[in-house]
């Protein structure tokens, strides 16, 4: 193999699968040998890893909102991330805030999700257009949808009230529940 060319380039999906530990046995051996011989494929994988690192950094800085899962949030907390969690019953209200040393805040929107095939979340904020998150991932057995808002934006906002609405976006659309967040900016006790 030369420095710049690869006669048998490895598909990016396979490179990523190896990086994430999804290949085993002979497939992993073959790919590892190839990567140690091929600068072109190694460079492509480096590019993928670099994007992954940026995604991680973005989330860790609270610079992106995301729908997560309860087990993922537990792992973050176990790894030392300071997570402020609110469990909100269906059609319920919660008083919430964000402390300066919180890394992340998370809302557990509780709902009966059995039979729901497609779920949208609508975020209603005063002074902003409604934001509709379409087709969010969820586990119907979990009985909740876990939403992490944009922590940096929340940190910079003052007292306000926002609402989230869960919508069954299947064949017969219906509102599953609405959740109110009465947010107070952090005040030193």
């Amino acid at each position, binding site marked *: 193999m*030369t420095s710049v060319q690869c006669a048998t380039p490895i598909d990016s999906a396979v490179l990523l699968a190896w990086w994430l530990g999804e290949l085993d046995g002979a497939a992993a051996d073959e790919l590892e040998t190839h990567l140690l011989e091929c600068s072109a494929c190694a460079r492509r994988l480096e590019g993928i890893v*670099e994007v992954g690192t940026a995604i991680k950094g973005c989330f860790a800085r609270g610079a992106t909102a995301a729908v997560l899962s309860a087990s993922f949030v537990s792992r973050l907390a176990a790894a030392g991330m300071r997570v402020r969690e609110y469990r909100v019953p269906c059609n319920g209200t919660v008083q919430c805030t964000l402390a300066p040393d919180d890394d992340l805040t998370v809302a557990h929107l509780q709902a009966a999700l059995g039979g729901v095939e497609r779920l949208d979340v609508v975020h209603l904020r005063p002074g902003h257009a409604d934001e509709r998150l379409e087709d969010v991932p969820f586990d119907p057995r979990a009985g909740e949808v876990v939403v992490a808002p944009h922590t940096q934006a929340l940190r910079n906002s003052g007292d306000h009230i926002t609402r989230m609405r869960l919508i069954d976006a299947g064949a017969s659309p219906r509102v599953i529940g609405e959740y109110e967040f009465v947010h107070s900016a952090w005040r030193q006790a």
Partner: protein
Amino acid sequence: MKGTVHGAARRSVDEGWDAMADAELARRIAAARGGDAGGAETELCRRLAPRVRLYGLRHLRDRHAAADLVQQVVLMTLERLRDGRLREAERLGSFVLGMCRMVIMDMRRTQRRRERLLETFPDDVPSADPAAAPRLDHARVEDCLRILPERERSVLVLTFYDDRPARDVATDLGLTEGNVRVIRHRALQRLRRCVEGAGGDA
């Protein structure tokens, strides 16, 4: 190793090393038997370092440990080539892979010893792990991540936060493993296109 990696990159272009196969470089080093291999050693080091580093990051998940691996494996490779211990130059990749595995096993044994020491003397060893200098435009990644479809963003965050395989992400999100792979692949392509500036949306 003679010269610097930066100097090696320039010579690489000047002397046409790029077109030379790894196996040919290995043969030149072996033929020189520790003498001057005409820059072949520097060129081989330049090529091997990033490849071994990736291997180390994948298996050790630690930048410093990966850097140690590079240093040890590259040096061992040169020593063995100079001593004529690689019989088939075409099999250099397998040869390097074997050394990577051996060094990693040794590093893990050392790490276990170190952990035992840390339990005994917890304050004596610094554990800081400084962030690598970013090469990507992270603000651009933020913008592109924001406009991805929700499902794709969730899959990417859960995948890359701690490098989890599709099986784990699928369990977390109530999706199938195959579905996670498809979403992940599509999302990454879309994100990279956006970050590289090919179109304003993700």
